[in-house]
């Protein structure tokens, strides 16, 4: 990687995989909040529990609907019967919380001792009468956000495959609605339907906060596209219908297993598009969906231009600045593409795992954006090596490093600006509406610097301190 070279296509590299990221079991933190009637049981050791307890911060005090099934020595050596043990715990959960689904999160330990969670679940499910979904979100195979991917892939198999008998159901519902609203509701429904173009059902997948779900749904509604359902829904009992031939579209770049499951197992058609992150990504996402349904998008030019206009104060801060992604949450390519469009130069895109098929459209858009902006094409480093990356950071002196908390403070002490990458996972970053929020995060260290400049406190480690 030398600065003089100007590569003509995206350059993919793969390093040692010695990097810092969150364990994929962290997905329970946002999924239990998203799926309101769920209970997540992480079957692992004290190590897993310690991670969750500390990573979830204050959430842990809010009586979360998650718990550890902490394995003891007797479980490891099979002196205890795993079926009986799980049954005991799941009955306790049923008694205390009465959830609509229990999600078992398999961990490294259950992999190594080869606990047959997928085999035990259906048996126990019929015995206790609560659906049990198994997701193997472990650190042997996956990184951070990929945890959600494993859970959603498992959920995809639980989506009903036929809409409940359409006519009677609808009449019945309308009858009740009529009673309650004196017929008003019916008008609304009829009116609603006419607003949409005639297109095959579309189901979106990816867990997003409810406000963002509303925003993206409205965005498509403006184009006359109806979102038939969302995986996951607010409740497990409201999982969307997935019939053969339905169209599906992913909203996050880390959902490749879910996409595969939807295509292969549920025979859905995947709309491969860039992800709706940043106004450019959102527009490309909408355009792609429209083009698949043969709809001519309307008003997108003005809408995108208007959003960019609203970002101008932030853009002035970052234009011409360089950014280095160390890589830990798989949002990196989409964020990099957006930041190039904002006028930044991306020096390196570290990423835990790169699915070139699922992210194909996003990669093409990245390449196109770089060319249009006259920005050099960045290297995409899969399974990065944090130590090597630090050496490159010292050499390249980026204006901003997007990295995990393990490296953020030490880099700041060496005069290098950082933004904590995990915030991008929890902040609202999708759609036109939230483009400002992304830049709010990206520019925060730069704005901080503007406030503190001239104090002479850039480097706060002694020269002789070793790195």
């Amino acid at each position, binding site marked *: 990687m030398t600065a003089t070279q100007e590569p003509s296509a995206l350059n993919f590299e793969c390093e040692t995989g010695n990097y810092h990221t969150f364990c994929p079991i962290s997905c329970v933190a946002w999924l239990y909040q998203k799926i309101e009637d769920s209970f997540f049981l992480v079957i692992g050791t004290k*190590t897993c529990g310690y991670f969750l*307890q500390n990573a979830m911060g204050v959430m*842990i005090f809010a009586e979360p609907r998650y718990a550890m*099934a902490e394995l003891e020595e007797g479980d490891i050596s099979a002196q205890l019967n795993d079926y009986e043990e799980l049954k005991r715990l799941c009955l306790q959960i049923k008694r205390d919380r009465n959830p609509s689904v229990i999600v078992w999160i398999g961990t490294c330990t259950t992999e190594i001792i080869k606990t047959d969670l997928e085999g035990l679940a259906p048996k126990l499910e019929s015995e206790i009468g609560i659906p049990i979904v198994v997701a193997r979100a472990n650190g042997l195979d996956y990184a951070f956000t990929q945890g959600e991917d494993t859970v959603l892939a498992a959920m995809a198999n639980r989506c009903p495959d036929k809409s409940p008998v359409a006519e009677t159901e609808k009449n019945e519902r309308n009858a009740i609605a009529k009673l309650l609203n004196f017929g008003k509701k019916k008008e609304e429904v009829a009116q609603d339907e006419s607003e949409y173009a005639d297109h095959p059902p579309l189901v979106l997948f990816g867990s997003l906060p409810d406000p963002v779900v509303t925003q993206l749904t409205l965005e498509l509604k403006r184009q006359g596209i109806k979102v038939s359902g969302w995986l996951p829904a607010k409740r497990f009992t409201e999982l969307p219908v997935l019939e053969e031939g339905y169209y599906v579209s992913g909203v996050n770049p880390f959902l490749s297993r879910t996409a595969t499951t939807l295509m292969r197992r549920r025979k859905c058609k995947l709309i491969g598009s860039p992800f709706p992150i940043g106004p450019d990504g959102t527009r490309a996402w909408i355009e792609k969906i429209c083009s698949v349904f043969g709809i001519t998008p309307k008003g997108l030019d003005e809408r995108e231009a208007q959003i960019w206009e609203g970002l101008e104060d932030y853009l002035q801060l970052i234009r011409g600045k360089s950014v280095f992604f160390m890589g830990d949450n798989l949002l990196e390519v989409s964020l990099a593409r957006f930041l190039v469009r904002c006028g930044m130069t991306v020096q390196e895109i570290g990423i835990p795992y790169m699915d070139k098929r699922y992210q194909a459209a996003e990669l093409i858009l990245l390449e196109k954006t770089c060319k249009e902006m006259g920005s050099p094409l960045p290297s995409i480093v899969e399974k990065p090596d944090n130590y090597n990356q630090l050496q490159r950071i010292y050499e390249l002196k980026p204006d901003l490093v997007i990295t995990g908390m*393990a490296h953020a403070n030490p880099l700041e002490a060496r005069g290098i600006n950082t933004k904590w990458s995990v915030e991008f996972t929890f902040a609202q970053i999708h759609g036109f509406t939230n483009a400002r929020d992304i830049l709010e995060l990206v520019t925060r260290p730069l704005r901080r610097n503007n406030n503190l400049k001239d104090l002479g406190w850039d480097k706060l480690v002694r020269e002789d301190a070793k790195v």
Partner: protein
Amino acid sequence: MKLAYWMYAGPAHIGTLRVASSFKNVHAIMHAPLGDDYFNVMRSMLERERNFTPVTTSVVDRNVLARGSQEKVVDNITRKDAEEHPDLIVLTPTCTSSILQEDLHNFVERSQLEASCDVMLADVNHYRFNELQAADRTLQQIVQYYIEKARKKGELPEGKSEKPSVNIIGSSTLGFHNHHDCTELKRLMADLGIEVNTVIPEGASVYDIKKMPRAWFNLAPYRELGLMATSYLEAEFGIPCVDITPMGVVETARCIRKIQQVINAQGAEVDYEEFINEQTLYVSQAAWFSRSIDCQNLTGKKAVVFGDNTHAAAMTKILAREMGIHVVWAGTYCKYDADWFREQVSEYCDEVLITEDHGAIGDAIARVEPSAIFGTQMERHVGKRLDIPCGVIAAPIHIQNFPLGYKPFMGYEGTNQIADLVYNSFTLGMEDHLLEIFGGHDTKEVITKGISAGSDLNWTKDGLAELNKIPGFVRGKVKRNTEKFARDRGFKDINVEVLYAAKESVGA
């Protein structure tokens, strides 16, 4: 299997990493899957550490499961040796490597041939020990390793230091107020005319360890960390250990008297009584505080105490013996060392509680309804739910328990800090009660009402529903901005689309 939501002490490898990364120039390599290096995040965040945490992972992935680690661990050790030139690399097993049962000893021996640094395997079993026990064991292991190494090379010093001197043992990274305690203890030793021979492990080099036998005695202020190392040193060199935690006025005096006795037995002729008297009556404010009217008001008030052995025991004694507070129960999560705790606190509280179950603790707090709680962050949150103030006295802790200001718990300055902590906890509770009696705060709801009442705007059902999804602490602001936006543009109704249009427009 057991259902667990919360744990007081972490897994074993955390203890090993705490000790290893407390030393200067010691690197730990974890044999663990991706994501188990969360220790680095904690150290970087909680301690606000400026340097990179010297911990890396030799990643266990599918290939390792299939074929074993083979060269991987050895390569990672030799690579780290070349990159960072540490004095020692500690190979750290985790729960994963415990079950894989790879021959980590063998990796250590092989890498020792190639690496120029020392390499050792932390001897801790994930399923038998917790964080605290593992830290204690690892410290002893490192001390023993370097003592034996020095002995082999004939580098152990002859005899004792000229003046009385001490090894302060047990201060470590991520320990509760450990840095401040350590500074306070060094000051105390200086006041007593005792040289500090070494401080282990925080900030020490492994090469300091061979100097340890020169000390006249060891001071191990923490019950959880250091006693294995001191008993090793006592067995090898007959170095006596003072293991009285100098926390609180009475215990500090007891600790100093023990030091006096130990060094006088070795030929020093010191009398610290005058010093203790001076400090107790005029330097520390805590003794005077216990006589003052403020403290009189606390007499007989109910409190409960929960934490690790060191802090919960010391706190219980301070509350009961030095402030006249009624400790209804005192508890510890150090189950493995429960007898010691019982013996320490039995006469100072009505009941002793030994448990690792935070639910049982919460219930016990609710049952007793104390005026104040002294516990960990978990008890602080129980207190919040029950409207009972809580002073945090032990790990597990959050970033606010790593204060930038000087806040020791030990020594004479520590007694002042504890008095403040106790007094502030109780008065806060009193203020709350008074507010309640006289009608409470009156600002709730009023702000939003005032604004919406005066506006001609109508929130539609979907708009209102969406507004209610916004977290409470920013909802008022979002509502005001949206209404301003709607008013400026002449919208009569605010629905969900107007709400988001407002968000998109600058300044709204």
